[in-house]
């Protein structure tokens, strides 16, 4: 698999939603697989400590900001205001994440900005009891200093779960970034004239010069999808690493793209 090995390192995003049983090596993505009752398999991208820390920082800033805002507003109300401020402080300390998760579709504003979502282990939206549990246990996660226990747990437990997630059976999921529609824009590539020439040369042959496993086919399709984003020099460089596929072609990149197009089968 040396050709697709090159292809893999250059073009494949780590963490593709592939069947983990097919990859022989250790998977370094943070995928949390859910087996649904219908027999389906759902891949959830568990959010790592960095993103969660960013979301926490934003939430912390929001909480501090709200508290300062409230304290200036309530200052004028004397003791009544101070009492309200104490209640607000309690709510912001303990209940802010719960309110965010239950009333704002599973994510506090900080998490929403980073694109995170809290779900139950089975992929359903986080339920009330679990949200309360994971956010109360946040207190232990914070010990002894600055979420040390929580971070340790995230490193050791699968799915980047802190202690609260482990106890409550939830997982924080990263929602995929909204991707530009690459398929329709790649319908006419810059290499079309050469592709036509290539097509003439290959029309009577098999789709690929050498048989490819489906993993390799998928890599080729992914490469074709990303070729424009990589930039032509780099894409050509990568294409040159697959002599078995591009043997004898004047433009290796065009040949690879053509093969990918044939694999897709829409042309």
């Amino acid at each position, binding site marked *: 698999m040396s050709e697709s090995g090159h292809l893999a390192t250059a073009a*494949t995003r780590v963490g593709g*939603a*592939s069947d983990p049983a097919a990859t022989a090596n250790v998977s370094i993505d943070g995928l949390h697989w859910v087996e*649904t009752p*219908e*027999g*389906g*398999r*759902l891949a*959830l991208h568990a959010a790592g400590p960095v993103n969660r820390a960013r979301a926490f920082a934003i939430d912390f800033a929001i909480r501090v900001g709200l508290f300062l805002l409230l304290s200036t507003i309530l200052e004028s109300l*004397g*003791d009544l205001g*101070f*009492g*309200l401020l*104490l*209640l607000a402080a*309690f709510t912001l*300390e*303990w209940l802010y994440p719960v309110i965010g998760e*239950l009333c704002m579709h*599973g994510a506090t504003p900080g998490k929403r900005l980073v694109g995170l*979502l809290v779900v139950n282990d089975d*992929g*359903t*939206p986080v*339920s009330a*009891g679990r949200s*309360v*549990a994971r956010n*109360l*246990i946040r*207190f*232990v996660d914070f010990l002894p200093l600055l979420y040390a226990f929580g971070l340790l747990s995230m490193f050791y437990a699968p799915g980047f779960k802190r*202690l609260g997630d482990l*106890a*409550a*059976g939830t997982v924080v999921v990263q*929602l*995929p970034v*909204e*991707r*530009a*529609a*690459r*398929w*329709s*824009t790649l*319908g006419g590539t810059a290499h079309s004239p050469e592709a036509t020439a290539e097509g003439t040369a290959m029309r009577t042959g098999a789709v690929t010069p050498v048989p490819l*496993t489906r*993993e390799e*086919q*998928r890599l080729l*399709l992914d490469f074709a*999808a990303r070729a424009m984003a990589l930039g032509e020099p780099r894409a050509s460089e990568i294409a040159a690493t697959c002599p078995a596929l591009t043997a004898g072609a004047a433009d290796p990149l065009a040949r690879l793209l053509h093969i990918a197009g044939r*694999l*897709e*089968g*829409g*042309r």
Partner: protein
Amino acid sequence: MSQARFVQRHASDWRRLRSLLDGKADDGPPSTDVPAAAGAERAPPSQRPTERPSRRFPSLDRSPLASGVSLELAELHGRLVVQLAIARERGYASDLVEELNELLLRTHARVHAVPPPAPRNMLRWLLEVYPSRVRAQYPHLIAALLLFFAPMLLVGVATIHDPELVHTLLDPIEVMAYERMYDPDNTRRYGQAARDSGTDFLAFGFYLRNNTSIGFQTFVGGLLLGLGTVFYLVYNGLHIGAVLGYVTAIGHGEPLWSFIAGHSALELSAIVLSGAAGTRLGWALIAPGRRTRLRALHEAARDGVQLIYGASALFVLAAFVEAYWSSMVLVPAFAKYLSGIGLWLLLIVYLRRGGRSEMSPRPQVDDGGRRS
């Protein structure tokens, strides 16, 4: 089958599913014409005027399935499961698989979402279900009672005999503050060093925040193999016992005990409930029985949170009573004692008899999963 043919065949399903999920179920019959480019399921943004601008957050609303679309939605959901499996198996492009995966996440959430409990059910839950949940944890309740009251009684009695003992637990400033709080010559309020009119609400806020925080910490401290819970219960027991003993010993007994009487039923039971939830957590880690520790922890957290719901309500009520009733100087002590005893009786009756009819079976105590 090639990827393009696969997309062509199923794109209408996916479009229909998206419109159902986005709540535009009245879209009319799904269009069957598919653009020539592969991956037509994903039209460029300019051709999707009806979709919301940001599709990063799926509409994971928790409403029950809307009637009329449930069958169709379920059917599309089932088909999507198969289509995603096929796409993965055949090694179609990662982008396509990722899209279908995300679509399945949204559909799965919608199909399996549990609607939030109706408000009328909550009252029934509070009156009937909650007491039986509490009774189910009676070993932990007893443990929490012992951990909390035993130190309190021991230190309290010891301090009455030797008031100087209080200085081993409290610093002199605190001791002086407590002396002042329960001074019989207080004009308006007990329990606070310097209070004047209009600060009842402030006291309420203070008590609520202080006590509920302690309750929550007592609960989750159980995660540290129960040590956190034990620490909190014992420490608070010692502290309270020392204060009770000392203030009684120096002669300020009546203000103190009448102050405590009013809300003791509520607050002490809230602490014990939190402690029971905490020991439940700790015990799940120490002796999970026939389950894995993780599974035992799940169940303990679930049971513990149930207890905490009631404890939180009791903390709120206790803060209210403590701020508005217990501290009033003008109310005679007799009335406070009476109300205190009344609350205790009410609480005991509620917990012992609530939700239990002649026919209901004894609640099953957590037994390490030996029974089903």
